[in-house]
């Protein structure tokens, strides 16, 4: 049996859901009172039952905000997300302390995300890591660009690139984010490139950046699994 020295803590404790709002079709922001310090980019394990196997979600709120905010979408065959979407204010949720080391940086960086992979970057920006940053966000529809008003205000149109694969809109690149990157040969090789999303996007984007001469040491990836 493991002894007490083993300190990887995924123990869950109960919290009350403060809000759970649908911000786009099947996409929600859930919040609860923060009781731990954390670094932007970290994740929490959550479950709707006390001894359930937790699923990991990136924190989307700032490190000094009163609330922990999580961005998630409903996966029809998901083990947790359909039930999670049914939670209301006052319901109990079981969460772990924040952990992980996909930390943000104060240095110049490009954040690249698909879908709800924008969450850790929201946390970084909301935690004051917003200087010399740009975001490239990919989504299927215009509705996929969660927090777009906040991001536009924070970064301005030149540093907030939206790539939409199925719809067109003002100031939105029409096509996948990988196509956008393929068409741009002015990528700064000295910047850090942070990637977050599903494996296929991360792997394809990483290959593309490496092909464009970005050293792999400058690419930091977080994969949703």
């Amino acid at each position, binding site marked *: 049996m*493991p002894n007490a020295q083993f300190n990887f803590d995924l123990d869950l404790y109960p919290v009350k859901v403060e809000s759970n709002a649908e911000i786009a079709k099947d996409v929600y922001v859930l919040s609860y009172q923060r009781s731990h310090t954390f670094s932007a980019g970290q994740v929490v394990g959550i479950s709707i039952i006390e001894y359930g196997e937790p699923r990991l979600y990136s924190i989307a709120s700032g490190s000094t905000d009163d609330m922990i905010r999580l961005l998630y979408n409903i996966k029809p065959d998901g083990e947790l997300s359909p039930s999670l979407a049914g939670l209301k204010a006052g319901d109990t949720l079981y969460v772990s302390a924040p952990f992980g080391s996909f930390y943000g940086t104060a240095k110049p960086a490009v954040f690249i995300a698909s879908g709800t992979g924008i969450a850790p970057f929201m946390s970084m920006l909301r935690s004051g890591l917003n200087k010399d940053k740009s975001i490239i966000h990919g989504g299927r529809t215009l509705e996929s660009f969660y927090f777009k008003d906040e991001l536009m205000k924070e970064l301005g149109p030149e540093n907030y690139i939206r790539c939409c694969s199925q719809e067109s809109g003002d100031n939105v690149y029409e096509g*996948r984010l990988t196509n956008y990157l393929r068409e741009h040969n002015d990528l700064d090789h000295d910047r850090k490139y942070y990637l977050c999303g599903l494996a296929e996007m991360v792997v394809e984007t990483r290959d593309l950046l490496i092909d464009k001469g970005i050293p792999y040491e400058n690419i930091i990836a977080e994969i949703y699994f």
Partner: protein
Amino acid sequence: MIKDTLLGKTKDELLVITGKLGLPKFTATQIAEWIYKKDISDISEMSNLSKKARELISERFTIGKIDHKDVQVSADGTKKYLFEAAKGNYIEAAYIPEEKRNTLCISTQVGCKMGCLFCMTGKQGFQANLSPGEILNQLLNLPEREEVSNLVFMGMGEPFDNMDNLMKSLEILTAPWGREMSPKRITVSTIGIIPSMSRFIDESDCHLAVSLHTPFEDERKNLMPIENVYPLHEIFTLLKSYDFPRQRRISFEYIMFKGVNDTRRDVNELVRLMHGLKARINLIRFHPVPGTPLEGSDDKTIIEFKDALIAKGVNTTIRASRGLDIAAACGLLSTKELLKNSEEKDY
């Protein structure tokens, strides 16, 4: 009516099925033995079951074995089998005959979510978890199944990301009513998903192999994104908290990358990490995948690295590369070319 499959059902699940069909409890053991020990392909072959019982079962179930779709044979005798999985997906399994043992390397997922920089499977993204039946079919429907002496879960996918189905297949492989393989002939490889590692160590007696690839956490993050969530020091803390029996092998897979993880500095840090843990380091030659920025270390460097570790008391071996000419070697399995691009990407 689409029939469910019996292959992949545990004895407990078979007991539920026989109970619902009004059959005696012992029928569950009989069915398990027919499928997992006697390798039948049709329910009608279950000759110690009554005709009525066979009819009842056949109305709702098939065995569920699926023949391989293709096989490639390497100059060194390694064979790479292509099997069809659900929803038109494909997986690969590698059969590696050797003088003293014959190893089958099997897959647990179609694709993989882990996105390691050096792995071909990761380049196809993730499509699906394999069911216990699909995992077991790679062995039970292999032409050489009777010759297989060792099983390694090192094919496509991260086994601990498909934990429930992995554990069911291990139960079936090792149970007295199942395939009755010794757990000492089965090795499960993981990238290091800590909660599942802990469960595996507690609930299984099979060997464990952990993908290490560098002793430095910051450098491991560049190679393996999982390091952001489940860091090396926690993996070692977990493993060192167990007192493993002598028969249970813990090993670390270590692909050698030129100038990245093959220096004296790496040897020294590996020695420090391994202190207090009875485990082996298995050095693996890197087989470059398209677009990789990494190069493999040369043989001289690999041998010197091994000798340096052994000199410091770390049990170290070099894994022979097999099936390189048919892309069956470590890190090269992929069915990306066979994917149907029906699913719209989210980026």
